[in-house]
């Protein structure tokens, strides 16, 4: 039983999952996630995979933007680097998926570090513009470096396999995605409770003071860029292996903005927030699709309106969240959690 903020021992709060409440829910959640393919259809599993890729990439972006305070408008391009690197490593060099994926993450991290170099000198809006430039340069490379990327035709990517087992279906791939998501989320949570996470947040909150506390700003910013791009690269590699093809239009600028929206709606600087944000941004448009699809039956002559309405409602939902809960979905979750973890002993 928990009573308010009282802790028997301060070492208790060094744990990630402090209350039985959280642990119980976590187990239920995991069981639910593992058994999901048993009763969900292929469409649901397709969406679940998409959510998984978005979670990985959003967690990465949140480490850079939410935690370290370096806004990136080029996240989709880093996802693209990972996607193309995976495709090229597998198809050209015959490297198995299992090695190609982490290698693609590293390649993306390397590109991210290069893009992060201006962060030594420029901050805020100016850095934004530098990352924006990266987005467009990389998009240009995807389209025009035909020798490697095969231009707008793209590259066909074979699905991952272990022995004779091929991860070719939505359901089988889902387990692969799930494992990577759990690892990526756990890694980020751990980073944030060690010296690295503290240094990132310190740079975000007050960079000059951080420097005087012994934090090498440039080095840590570069590491944040690398880490964030690594996550993006892995997400990209998984994604293209799932889609079985990589083409340039997978990684437009608008997708970079979508990722920013995810972490803002979910909660800046919060790993949990990245998860909520990714779910929200992937699921809501799908739900709106389903809703408009079924309404079409009743109002066949209003079909013209439904499609733009979808976008408008989505936009309003985002703005609504920002107005009513500026700290994001993660904050709402914390309030619910605090309510129930004390309940019915909330004295």
């Amino acid at each position, binding site marked *: 039983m928990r009573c308010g903020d009282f802790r028997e021992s301060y070492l208790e709060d060094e744990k990630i999952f402090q209350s039985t409440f959280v642990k119980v829910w976590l187990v239920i959640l995991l069981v639910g996630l593992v058994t999901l393919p048993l009763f969900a259809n292929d469409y649901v599993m397709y969406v679940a995979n998409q959510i998984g890729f978005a979670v990985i990439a959003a967690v990465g972006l949140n480490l850079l933007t939410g935690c370290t305070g370096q806004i990136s408008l080029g996240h989709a391009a880093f996802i693209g680097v990972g996607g193309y690197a995976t495709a090229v490593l597998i198809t050209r060099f015959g490297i198995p998926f299992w090695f190609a994926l982490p290698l693609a993450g590293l390649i993306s991290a390397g590109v991210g570090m290069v893009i992060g170099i201006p962060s030594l000198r420029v901050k805020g809006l100016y850095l934004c513009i530098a990352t924006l430039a990266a987005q467009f340069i990389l998009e240009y490379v995807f389209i025009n470096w035909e020798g490697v990327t095969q231009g707008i035709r793209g590259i066909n990517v074979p699905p991952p396999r272990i022995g004779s087992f091929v991860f070719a279906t939505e359901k089988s791939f889902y387990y692969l995605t799930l494992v990577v998501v759990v690892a990526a989320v756990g890694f980020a949570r751990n980073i944030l*409770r060690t010296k690295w996470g*503290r240094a990132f947040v310190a740079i975000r909150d007050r960079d000059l003071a951080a420097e*005087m506390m*012994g934090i090498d700003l440039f080095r840590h910013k570069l590491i944040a860029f690398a880490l964030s791009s690594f996550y993006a690269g892995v997400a990209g590699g998984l994604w293209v292996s799932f889609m079985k093809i990589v083409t340039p239009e997978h990684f437009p600028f608008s997708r970079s903005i979508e990722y920013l929206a995810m972490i803002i709606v979910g909660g800046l600087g919060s790993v949990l927030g990245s998860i909520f944000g990714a779910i929200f941004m992937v699921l809501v448009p799908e739900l709106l699709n389903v809703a408009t699809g079924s309404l079409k039956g009743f109002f066949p002559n209003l079909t013209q309106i439904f499609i733009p309405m979808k976008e408008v409602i989505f936009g309003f939902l985002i703005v609504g969240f920002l107005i009513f809960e500026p700290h994001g979905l993660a904050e709402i979750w914390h309030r619910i959690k605090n309510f129930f973890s004390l309940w019915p002993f909330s004295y």
Partner: protein
Amino acid sequence: MGTTSHLNQPNQAADQLLRVDDISLRFGGVNVLANVSTSVAEGEIFAIIGPNGAGKTCLLNCINRFYQPVSGRIYFEGRDITPLRPHQIPELGIARTFQNVELFKGMTVIDNIKLGRHVHLDTGLIAAGCYFGKARKTELALRKEIEERIIDLLEIEHIRKKRVGALPYGLQKRVELARALAMKPKLLLLDEPVTGMNLEETEDIARFILDIHDEWGVTIVLIEHDMGVVMDISDRVCVLDFGVKIAEGSPDDVRHNEQVIKAYLGEQDLTYSRLGA
């Protein structure tokens, strides 16, 4: 001044922890510090006083390499630290607090304090992400040490989980002191630690400073306006006025120094009366 004759012998006195040698600092043609030399012995509580704008904060900023003096050198433990960058200073064992609190407002009190230890932790990025074995032990040991040695000493148990931005000013100053202690300092630079505090808070902080000095054996350089505190706790006092060192010596010497009295008279009656008190 005697110091100039030792210019070429940075290692001269072993008990000299910090030596500031003839430094000048300029901002847009204004001499903020003019040929200031001084030294601090190991184990001392050394106070820097002077009217507002005298250059006291700038002197600390030069010592921890945040400002680049146009001339002069700074030695710590006999080593020339003038070429170092600000982030390389904490590793040597120099920690500081700031006149206007410089905490990380989005972080909790405990995380702010932990951050002070940053340079002494060697957990790699991947080890940190796995949080297994040594990485975990390091974090737990750090937490334990902070709880038992720092939080206890500064009496901030009740706020450890609070976000710093939400705390009142007096407590923020205390957290900043805690963070500086977490840096394992040999030399602690305190910029106006009791300014803006009431009498009770002031007495608490003065007691903490003495505790830190006695129990941890930390050498302390302290900028302060409250003459009561300065006269009570410091071994030696250095007086700056318009960037020039006008006196240095025991609190009693300085209190009766004519130039010092003049410098303070020129500023404010209030300060003068506090000096006389």
